[in-house]
């Protein structure tokens, strides 16, 4: 009886701080923003209930859809740039010599830097006058390709996708390496004895064996694309003319620059819904393909 009470007390008091912290700072905000999404609110003073107006306004606003489109560009760049590149590197890096470990460590390196540092370095790389990119192009005689990479609305978003790939490729590489090393060697050996070529083995053994990891990687690309806010904020602030606006920066600008907290809350809620939908959608899509 007394042991039972001590046990209960320990469980209760032990969990209390974590549950409280988690509930207040992670769970409540989701419902909070859903609630204030229904309000016309400037952050101070009276909040006025306006029903679905904020949500309707967001969904009928061109810039909202443009931001969503840019988010999808980041997703596409990650799925079709990061994943194949990481997979290729993983296939080439399966030996584990010191040279290969060095390459692996280098590929991972950008992951430990602050996004502010990455954003500023890449702004300088793209800078029209002193930038490395224009410098290299001039050096190899392609001077006519020189341009202000981040001020050209038609390419700015794609130029931002490059540092995103560069920055986040590391974890995918590690995941693929782990998956590749779990494929039993006998399988490959047996196929080789049966005369299967390298390419054949890649498509008939390796890729099917790590398909689950590829699926996880794609889901990560989708949820990870929403993290690009920091880079955008540092490099372009969403400009020029909203060409690099992401949902998160759109939300940020509406809330903290023009003080529309109700509207910003509605957009926050839409971000949660969209990211959950994208993740669920990609899961369903790939389950069907797998059958």
């Amino acid at each position, binding site marked *: 009886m007394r042991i039972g009470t001590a046990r209960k007390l320990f469980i209760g008091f032990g969990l209390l701080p974590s549950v409280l*912290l*988690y509930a207040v700072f992670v769970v409540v905000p989701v419902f909070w923003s859903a609630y*204030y999404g229904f309000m016309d609110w400037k952050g101070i003073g009276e909040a006025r209930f306006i029903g679905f107006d904020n949500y309707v306004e967001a969904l009928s606003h061109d810039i909202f859809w443009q931001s969503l489109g840019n988010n999808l560009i980041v997703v596409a760049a990650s799925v079709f740039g990061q994943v194949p590149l990481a997979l290729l590197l993983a296939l080439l890096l399966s030996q584990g010599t010191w040279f290969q470990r060095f390459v692996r460590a280098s590929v991972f390196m950008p992951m430990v830097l*602050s996004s502010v540092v990455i*954003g500023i370095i890449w702004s300088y790389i793209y800078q029209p006058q002193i930038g490395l990119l224009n410098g290299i192009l001039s050096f190899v005689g392609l001077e006519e390709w020189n341009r202000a990479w981040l001020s050209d609305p038609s390419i700015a978003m794609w130029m931002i996708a490059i540092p995103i790939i560069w920055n986040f490729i590391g974890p995918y590489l590690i995941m693929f390496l782990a998956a590749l090393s779990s494929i039993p060697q006998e399988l490959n050996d047996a196929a080789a004895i049966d005369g299967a070529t390298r390419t054949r083995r890649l498509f008939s053994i390796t890729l099917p064996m790590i398909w689950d990891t590829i699926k996880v990687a794609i889901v990560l690309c989708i*949820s*990870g694309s929403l993290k690009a806010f920091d880079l955008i904020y540092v490099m372009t602030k969403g400009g020029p003319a909203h060409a690099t606006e992401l949902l998160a920066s759109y939300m940020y600008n509406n809330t903290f620059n023009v003080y529309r907290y109700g509207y910003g809350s509605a957009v*926050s809620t839409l*971000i949660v819904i969209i990211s959950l939908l994208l993740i669920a959608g990609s899961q369903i899509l790939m389950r069907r393909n797998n059958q």
Partner: protein
Amino acid sequence: MSTSMPALDTGLHKTRRQYKWWRRSIRNILLGFYALVTLYPLFWMFMSAFKSNADFFANPFSLPQTWNWSNFVRAWEVSGMGKATMNSLFVTFVSLVLTLFFGALTAYIISRFEFRGRGILYSLLLLGLLIPIHSTLVPLFSMMNMMGIFDTHAALILPYTAFELPIAVFIITAYLANIPKEMEEAALVDGAGYTGIFLRLILPITLPALSTVAILGFLRFWNDFAFALVFINDPSLKTLPLSLSVFADGFTTDYSLTMAALSMASLPTIIVYLMFQEQVMKGMAAGSVKG
């Protein structure tokens, strides 16, 4: 194989070996090139930090003509990096202690006790990893204003801890699952309380998992930009990434000064990375699978 039977080392063998040698060389050249491209932006940052601005403009690619340490001194003073470093150290340290202690406590209770709602609690924690962090900026901003912790160190420490708890609990629970319970049961029979068992047995046993959590937390807290941007206004409370962001728009013409500031801010995380490479890579890959 061919050494044991030198007589069989015919032309066929030679071409196969040559083919293998060529393939390995091409692979290593490609990998080396990729590593070079990946590391170059960082190398460029460190090199430029030592240059005078004139040298930076004239020879963007070469090594510094004279190694200027004065950039570092100037950057340290101009951007108030001393104060910012202290703030970053304090916020990171307190958040780490809280994350480790409450993460371990929660993981211990979840993995060793039967109680109602255990499964729900664990899934709820993992579900939280799907919530995009940026969607909580607006609601947390308003909530912190109401709680009166906006623009204090607590405005960073509490959400950092809350958002890191799921990963901490996940990593430590997975580690505890492979540890036999006999020692704890013996301690219980000897009359030790749960608190004693947690402090004297569980914390030391889970040290490897705790160190992974600590490294991940350190990188995340030290590098965070979004929370600091929104929850901190007072210049004397700014963390490093926030104080660096002034370089993104303020001092843009003083390039080598900026590069020196970026280099100094990146050094701690790069050192931690070089010291704990394997742990950082494995931990971040595992953390992102569940995040």
